């Protein structure tokens, strides 16, 4: 199974060579790894292999090949008006991550494939639930949609010009453009400088608390953003901070989950 995922991941790397979200995901996992206990690091390598940076976006790669299609339903979190997680079934990141942690905790009685899959779920779904595009707020129904918004093309001091773009693409690729030529390691260093001081705060709590935290991060955004909203250069700069806040949280929380699951 490990070999299949690795092959898929490498394939994904080729597909996404120009898509920098691949680099952000790598950075997230590398930073998570740095913050894992030696035991968690050991178990991660035991089940996924030595090449840590390749172990991202493997579900997406599998889906592109027509496999693991059910994982597409596990990426999101839904929050009610009080920003409490809505958990009607297991088609959400929260329940899937919680189940995965239990599998890793009880790994002695599980097959190697089951544990490997559970670790992948912890990594990939934690990343997914910290992407604003996957945070649905019931009070803002369009938060679930891939709506069009108006993206600033600049204007250099004059009136800005805008072009229609897709909302979810913004939160996947839209902030990488200003960090061309950045490696995953450069992002790791930057995340540590920007967010390292919040590490304990980010790592504390449960997956459900983190979902509420993401709701709090997303809510001020949806108070003004929606279909055909203008994303000015000013707003883009501000939203980049929100984007990075999600990346940093995911990094430290993957570490927290792996530490908890392997202690």
């Amino acid at each position: 199974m490990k070999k299949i995922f690795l092959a898929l991941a490498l394939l994904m790397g080729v597909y996404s060579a120009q898509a920098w979200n691949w680099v952000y995901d790598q950075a997230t996992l590398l930073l998570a790894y740095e913050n894992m206990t030696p035991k968690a690091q050991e178990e991660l390598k035991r089940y996924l292999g030595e090449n840590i940076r390749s172990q991202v976006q493997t579900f997406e790669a599998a889906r592109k090949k027509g496999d693991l299609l059910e994982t597409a339903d596990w990426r999101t979190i839904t929050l009610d008006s009080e920003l409490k997680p809505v958990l009607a079934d297991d088609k959400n990141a929260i329940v899937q991550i919680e189940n995965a942690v239990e599998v890793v905790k009880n790994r002695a009685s599980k097959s190697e494939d089951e544990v490997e899959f559970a670790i992948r779920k912890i990594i990939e779904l934690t990343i997914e639930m910290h992407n604003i595009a996957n945070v649905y707020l019931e009070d803002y129904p369009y938060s679930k949609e891939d709506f069009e918004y108006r993206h600033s093309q600049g204007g250099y001091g004059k009136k800005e010009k805008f072009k229609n773009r897709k909302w979810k693409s913004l939160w996947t690729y839209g902030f990488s453009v200003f960090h061309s030529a950045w490696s995953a390691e450069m992002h790791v260093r930057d995340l540590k400088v920007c967010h390292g001081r919040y590490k304990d705060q980010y790592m504390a709590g449960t997956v459900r608390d983190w979902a509420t935290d993401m709701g709090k991060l997303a809510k001020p955004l949806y108070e003004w953003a929606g279909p055909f909203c203008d994303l000015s250069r000013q707003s883009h700069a501000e939203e980049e901070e929100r984007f990075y806040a999600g990346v940093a949280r995911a990094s430290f929380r993957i570490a927290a989950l792996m530490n908890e699951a392997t202690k």
Partner: protein
Amino acid sequence: MKQTILKTLLVAVAAMFVTERAVAWENVGHAVIAYNAERLLDPEVKAKCRHYLKATIPFYATWMDQARSIEPYTVCDKWHSTNIDANNKVVVGKSTTGAYHIERIRKEMANGAYKNMSDSLVKINLQYLIHMVGDHHCPVHVRWSKKSHPQYHYSLLNKGKKRSPHGFWDGAIKFRRSNWTAEKHFENMQLLSPKKAKKIQKGTAYDWTQETADVWRKYCYPAMPEGTEISKMSEEDVATVHAIVDKQVQRAAYRLAGVLTEIFKE
């Protein structure tokens, strides 16, 4: 009919202008210069930069390109380049040029004066310096008047279509090596001895801009004259372009590191 043609021409010229200004050194060049400069800093200075920026230096490499559309920073719209006069000499003391503001900020922050500034002012000043020092080493970030230097207002060709030299040189760092990371560019950069580094870091932003203008006149312009077909450039021609750009990136990185050291080194 006449009006339509005129309108089309105006739109085309405006589009060219916007494109030219949109790509300043491009994001890659600025990221590389900032990253290389950070790698050259001693730990004390690097820590101070990160303390004020609350980020690594490359994070703010392209900030000024965004800020020029954002109030209250639209004032910096003209600071990305500096004028050259009819005698090929850099124009000194003009407040609508970047070199002026590099020197202004250096003076204002010198000899520990940054300690009397608010943290947010120190941060903004650093963000300006990180970008402007880079910009002033880009061969097309010297402004040649069309009146005094009409020969520098021309077109290159890319697959038969006109392309401005500005657009080409801004992105030349990644020309035929678009997959290089900043780290790879650092490995590629020739490191200098402390003595040589000190020598290169001497002078003012005006001196560096003058040097950049000379690089344009002596190397860039002859290497890529009017009508050069970019898509048909030989490996040798590409190597020449890379040699010019890499030298400018090296100078910019050492000088940015020098400026930051001069400000923060106790």
